[in-house]
Every structure is written in C-alpha cells, then in structure tokens.
C-alpha cells in the first residue's frame, strides 16, 4: 500500500518535471519561430521604396543594379556609369522634385496631368540619367527603360557592406558591418577579460586568504547584478573621455570603449565559473604535485589550470555569450556607426545595439522592421553556436577526466 503511494508520487513528480521541461522547450522554439516568421518575409522583396521605380535612358546598357550601387549613385559616390557596367558617361541624378528644373509649372499642368509626358521627355533626352520616379506617373508611352533592382537575398544581407535600412530611394541592408562590429567588440572584450578574470580566479582560489576571498567573492558576484545602463553610463563618463584624450581622437565612442565595458561585464561570469572550476581540482592532485617538489606556482600552472581547463573555457565562452548579446552599455559607448571596423579606435555598431536603436522607428511589418528580426535570428544563431561550443567542450573534458 505504502509502496503504491510512493510509486504514484514518483510518477506525478516525473510528469511535472516532464511537462515543465517540454513547456520551456516549446516556448523557446515558439520565440525562435516568431523571430524568424516576422523577419523571413523580407527575403525576395524589392528594397525600392513602395510605389516608385528606377528608370534610365533606353540607350543605357545597364539593366539592373543592386541596392548598394543605387545608394552609392544617389550619394554621388559613383559618378560614372562605367563603374556599374555601363558606358563611359557621367551619371545624372533625377528625383521627382527635379522636374521643375526642366519644365515650368504650366507645362507640367495644374494637376500634373502632363507629368508623365514630361518625365518621358527628360529621361529620353539625357543619356546618363537615372530617375527615381513614382510608378503612377509612368504611362505606356514612356520611352525610358525601367531599371531592375535586385531583390533582398540571404547572401546579400549577410555579406552586404552597407547598412542604410531607411535610405532613399532604395533601402540598403548589408548586415556585415553589424556582424563584424559585434564579433570585433566581443573578441577584444574577451581578449582583455580572460587574462584578468583568470588571474583573479586563481588569486581567489589559490592565493588569497580565506577572509579576503569571502569579501571578494560576493563583491564580484554583485558586479554581475549591476544593470547594464549603469555600466554604459560609467563607460560614457569615464572610459570614453579617457580614450578620447589618451589617443587624441575626435570622439571617444569607439569599439575600444565597448570592448572595455563588455570585458568588465563579462568578468564576473569568467571569474565565478573559473574559480569554481579551479576549486574542484582534487586536493590529492595538488598534494601529488607538491610532494614531487613542485612549488605552489608550478602546481597552479602545471596541474591546477590544466585540470580545470574545461571549466575555465566554459567561463570564457559564457562570458563571450554575455558580451555578444549585451545591448545597452554597448549602445551607449561605441558610437554606433555601422561601418566595417578596421581599428579598435573607430566607432562600431553591434547587432543588439542596432535592434534596440532602430526597432522603435521601424514601421511594423515593413522591410526595415523585418530586417531587424532577421538580425535577431542571426544573433540567436551566434549565441547558440557559442552555447553548443560550451556543451561540446565540457562533454569532451568529462570523457578525459573519467
């Protein structure tokens, strides 16, 4: 009888655990599906502004361009058709407003009734023209040629070098600068946090007097609980001016500032996890080393660190994970220029900062909005890779240790 009750009890507990486990997994999966479904509609869409088309003279050899090229043309950075595969002729930009340079208001007509004809004439008379015009003013007698703009695709999105999602006439969505910005800032953050964190962990686990450790440990754990705006604020007030003065820069908001702040933020994770790992080194292992005449430091570097390397790696990777996903502090100190970083002393922009900064102004369901969701997916995939790496490393080390 008693046995029966405990059996049923066990079954209930098992069922509860099972249910809560599956609910959590389902929620996670739903979130990912949501992110993806919100964003995926972007691919295959045309980045040209709704209701507008690009037109060129009918003699123009160029028949299609990608968004980046259009952006450069309209910014005046490409001034010759040769650069985009055409003949040697300079580019003449034409927007709807420019029509008044060519025709008087009477010629166009009070209600723009002659506008289609005028547009047609302009495009026909200037061989090097590129015109950004409303679709509704193009009639069947239009003598120009419609320029095809490449649709958004995954390759172009991930590898594109320009991020101007609100640019006119064509939105340019190349996430490469954001991707590299994220990796760049995180990489240097970890480069700086890992040695420091490891040194602190070793100090706490092996060198510090227990009382010192008992003070230090909660302080470091507290560091993990400080909201990231506070870190950002600290960065803005202390680190940014410091960098600006030290390196004599026009602005101090740089990748370097972001790396330092992220490094500081990753420190508690790295320290706590590595310290725990170091402390799990069996006493017998340390004694074996000391009994062979090794001194304390030799024991630390030759036995303790190798023994706890899996824990240390896990700490570092989780620290990276934190750095990659961090938003607020980075947004505040990196200067947010979406350019591919060459040095540490340039402004950069990370994926999370981009999402945070732009989601508010992107109209729901629009191209820009969708692109931000895809950025979210990219971020998710990066963190997933990072976590799988942790899993892999700890599993491999478990095998070695047993």
């Amino acid at each position: 009888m008693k046995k029966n009750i405990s059996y049923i009890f066990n079954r209930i507990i098992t069922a509860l655990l099972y249910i809560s486990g599956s609910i959590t997994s389902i929620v996670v999966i739903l979130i990912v599906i949501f992110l993806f479904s919100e964003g995926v509609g972007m691919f295959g869409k045309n980045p040209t502004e709704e209701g507008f088309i690009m037109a060129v003279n009918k003699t123009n050899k160029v028949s299609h361009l990608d968004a980046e090229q259009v952006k450069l043309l309209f910014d005046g950075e490409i001034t010759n058709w040769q650069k985009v595969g055409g003949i040697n002729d300079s580019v003449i930009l034409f927007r709807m407003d420019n029509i008044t340079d060519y025709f008087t208001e009477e010629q166009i007509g009070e209600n723009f009734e002659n506008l289609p004809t005028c547009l047609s004439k302009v495009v026909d008379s200037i061989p090097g023209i590129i015109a950004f015009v409303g679709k509704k003013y193009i009639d069947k007698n239009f003598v120009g040629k419609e320029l095809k703009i490449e649709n958004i695709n995954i390759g172009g999105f991930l590898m594109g070098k320009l991020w101007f999602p609100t640019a006119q006439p064509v939105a340019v969505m190349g996430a490469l600068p954001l991707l590299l910005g994220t990796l760049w800032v995180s990489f240097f953050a970890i480069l700086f946090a890992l040695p420091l964190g490891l040194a602190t962990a070793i100090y706490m686990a092996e060198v510090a007097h227990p009382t010192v450790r008992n003070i230090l440990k909660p302080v470091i754990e507290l560091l993990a609980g400080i909201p990231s705006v506070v870190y950002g604020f600290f960065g803005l007030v202390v680190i940014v001016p410091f960098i600006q003065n030290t390196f004599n820069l026009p602005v101090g908001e740089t990748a370097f500032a972001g790396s330092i702040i992220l490094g500081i933020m990753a420190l508690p994770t790295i320290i706590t996890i590595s310290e725990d790992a170091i402390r799990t080194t069996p006493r017998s292992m340390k004694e074996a080393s000391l009994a062979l005449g090794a001194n304390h430091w030799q024991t630390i570097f030759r036995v303790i660190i190798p023994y706890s390397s899996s824990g240390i790696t896990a700490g570092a990777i989780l620290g990276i994970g934190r750095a990659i996903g961090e938003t607020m502090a980075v947004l505040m100190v990196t200067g947010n220029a979406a350019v591919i970083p060459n040095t540490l002393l340039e402004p950069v922009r990370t994926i999370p900062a981009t999402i945070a900064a732009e989601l508010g102004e992107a109209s729901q369901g629009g191209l820009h909005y969708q692109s931000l969701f895809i950025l979210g997916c990219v971020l998710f995939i990066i963190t997933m890779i990072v976590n799988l790496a942790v899993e892999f490393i700890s599993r491999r080390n478990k095998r070695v240790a047993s």
Partner: protein
Amino acid sequence: MYKIETKDINLYYGDHHALKNINLQMKANTVTALIGPSGCGKSTYLRLLNRMNDLIENVRIEGTVLIDNKNIYERGIKIDELRKKVGMVFQKPNPFPKTIFENVAYGLRVNGISNKDYIEERVVRSLQNAVLWDEVKDKLKKSAFELSGGQQQRLCIARALAIEPSIILMDEPASALDPISTAKIEELIYELKDKYTIVIVTHNMQQAARVSDRTAFFYIGELIEYNDTKEIFTNPQNQRTQNYITGRFG
C-alpha cells in the same frame, strides 16, 4: 646514525592533540610499517616527514624532525628541496591528467630539468624500477587515466622514484587495490629497500609482517610500541598491541 629521527613530537590540529610525544628513529634502507586503528595519527605522522601538514590550516607542531641529521622544520629550509628528497605515495592513486610519460617526467620538469635524453632515460628507468615498464612501454603517450588502479598506483610510485628521493613515504598504498596488484606493490617495496628508506602506513597486518623490518604501533596519537616486526607480531610487549594485531579491536 639514523636516517630519520623524530624527537618529542607534539602535533595539534587546532585544539585536537593528534600526536603526543612521539620519539621514533629509522635507519637507512629499512622498511618501517606504521600500524594502528583508524584516526590514531599514522597519516599525520607520515605527513610530518615531508611537511605535507604545512598545507593544513591551524596546525601546530612541536619537537624536532631530523632527516640526515638536519632539522627539517628549521627556518630557511627549502620545502621543495626537502620534498625532492622525501617522496610520497598516497592512499588513492592520483595520477595527473597527463600522459603516462608526462606523469613520470613531472618531478623532473618542475625541478628545472629540460634535457630530453636525460628525462627520457629517467622515465624509463623509473617505470622499470616500479615494475610497470612492460605494461606501458607501448602507450607512454596515452592518458594515465587509461591504466588500471593497480597500474596507476605503480605509476605514482614510478613518479616518486623519478626524482631520486632517498626516502619514500607510502600511505596505505595498496588499500584501494586488488590482491594481485597488492602483491606486486609488496614485491616492489621489497626490491626498493636496497636503495631507499621506506615508511609505510598499512591496515593490513599480514602486509606489515611481510614487507617491514620494523613496526610502530600507534594508538590515539601515542606511540605505544616500536620494535622489530618479528618481535611485534610474535611477542608484543603491550597488551593493546597484542589486542590490535590479533584483531580484537580496531
């Protein structure tokens, strides 16, 4: 002239008086067995001889320990030098998470020796002396964890031999092993006696009788009796010794 001399040793773990007035001398190239019930201070005494107790907080030690006529608790003694002279083998095999080769080479490397040929020669010789060579010669680059418990313990002995100590301390070296591995270790101890002075803690009376020349019986921190092994086992002077070796307590 003794190899090891301990005079009027008192050792305290905080308030706990773990060793009481111990006076014990050991000659070079002998095997001394330390026996006694659990908690009587055998390990504590053993760890006194290579200053392993220094790692424990709140330990207080009184008295003198002379090794080769030198007080090892004197100020200015280099502990790592001492430990190179006094090797130790622990109760549970504790190889490093390194290859078999690197385990044995460890003591040499931390000693600052980097001559590859010399290290290799010493590793091979130590493994041979620990009667492990034939079993591992084809897998020196494999992890030490791949060995059996008995092999691991002999690896730990080889590791201790590699730095050429003159004294080897063994704390129940065979207690975690099967009878065959135990027999191998005992044989090994017998062979090592020619070159080393050995102090071994054991709970196994037969083992003490088989391997040791002298036996010391400890009881709650005191040295009750210390004599030739044969004498202790055939003609104990103290009633408690008698009770212990005949298995009436402990």
